[in-house]
């Protein structure tokens, strides 16, 4: 069975390490916050100007001055700090944020990412995505392995306009966990019940398979 969105988030959460500063993008990446492993201390950065993002507020306690980069109402945690947008991207650019998790429409075998623009459709903008991918030390992409037509989104070259070049390090899709390596997409784990052959058939870019590939456990 392919992973659900929650399971993709759950699997990505296992990459978190104690002491990490993490920026989570909109969509599946946001769900990662729900699966931070017990005993691990992670500080969430929201690029609109907050370190130490807490959960959604209780009903009736929403604060219009306290939102995340997805414009959702949120809370702070003990130790939170506010700052302006230049400092926010300053800390991102300076490599202070340990991990960025974001979604993608396409990723190439060289680690290029496209996630902001589809020609012919209304373009809403890149927001902070280009800044994040250009500077993050480690980028994990959460995505579906194929588009609704069944076509691979893991490609030799991105077809859509790029967000960043050679920046993606790891992909957690609904079918697999893969590292982006100089040799191409290296298969590390399979979704439960998903075969290596299925992953191979749905990966258009170069796929490296070495030895037995374990199944993810949930």
């Amino acid at each position, binding site marked *: 069975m392919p992973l659900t969105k929650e399971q993709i988030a759950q699997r990505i959460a296992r990459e978190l390490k104690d002491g990490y500063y993490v920026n989570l993008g909109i969509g599946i990446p946001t769900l990662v916050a729900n699966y931070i492993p017990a005993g691990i201390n992670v500080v969430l950065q929201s690029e609109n100007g907050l370190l130490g993002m807490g959960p959604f507020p209780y009903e009736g306690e929403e604060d219009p001055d306290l*939102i995340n980069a997805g414009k959702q109402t949120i809370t702070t945690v003990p130790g939170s700090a506010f700052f302006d947008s230049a400092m926010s991207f300053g800390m991102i650019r300076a490599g202070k944020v340990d991990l960025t998790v974001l979604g993608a429409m396409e990723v190439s075998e060289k680690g290029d990412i496209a996630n902001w623009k589809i020609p012919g459709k209304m373009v809403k903008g890149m927001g902070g995505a280009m800044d994040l991918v250009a500077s993050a030390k480690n980028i994990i992409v959460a995505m579906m392995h194929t588009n609704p037509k069944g076509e691979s989104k893991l490609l030799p070259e991105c077809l859509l306009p790029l967000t960043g070049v050679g920046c993606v390090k790891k992909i957690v899709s609904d079918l697999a966990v893969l590292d982006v390596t100089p040799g191409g997409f290296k298969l590390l784990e399979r979704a439960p019940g998903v075969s290596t052959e299925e992953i191979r058939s749905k990966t258009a870019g170069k796929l490296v398979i070495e030895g037995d590939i374990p199944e993810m456990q949930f």
Partner: protein
Amino acid sequence: MNKVIANAEEAIKDISDGAVIMIGGFGLCGIPENCIAALVKKKVKGLTCISNNAGVDDFGIGLMLQNKQVKKMISSYVGENAEFERQLLSGELEVELIPQGTLATRCLAAGYGMPAIYTPAGVGTEVAQGKETRNFNGKDYLLEFAFEAGFAIVKAWKGDRDGNLIYHETARNFNPLMAMAGRITIAEVEELVPAGGLNPDSIHTPGIYVHHIFQGKGYQKRIEQRTVRKKV
């Protein structure tokens, strides 16, 4: 130095057709509601607005779009606005999309008196087209220029007659950066305190950057995405 003026109408009286205006805020958080309402009432046209977002259909910069006052938007993200989309597709509105960190840093550069900055955001993408690229220590960076804007309009939580400003929570966002970057900076505040009422150690924007300040009123502070959890 007393920079206090009566209201939003007086604050924007020098803004005329074709002006370039920075408008603070992120989404609808920390936007100068009073000045936007005054600009809508004044019906100035042909404006270039530098702002991270373009509001929603019936609030924020969206109100100026409904009124067809905006010629060009310079933003990082412009979703959530049907009238914006209609004007863009019909060619009535020009849009320049800029990476959010670049937008912020181009404001910062203006306020710090620096003509340009180098940033890696957009290298290898269409954002890099026509821009000077320079390699530092093995990594490519784009040359991006400081903004030049006739006016900056910002919203702060507290301010004093000297124009010193303090922002609240994530309503800070682009406000202090734009406050530094405008040739004329207008600040509307939720609470105008008596002289000496702010702790000098806590000031986010020193008054030297601010030309006019006034006590705002009737803040709606709309929430774009109300997300909550249930008490268990």
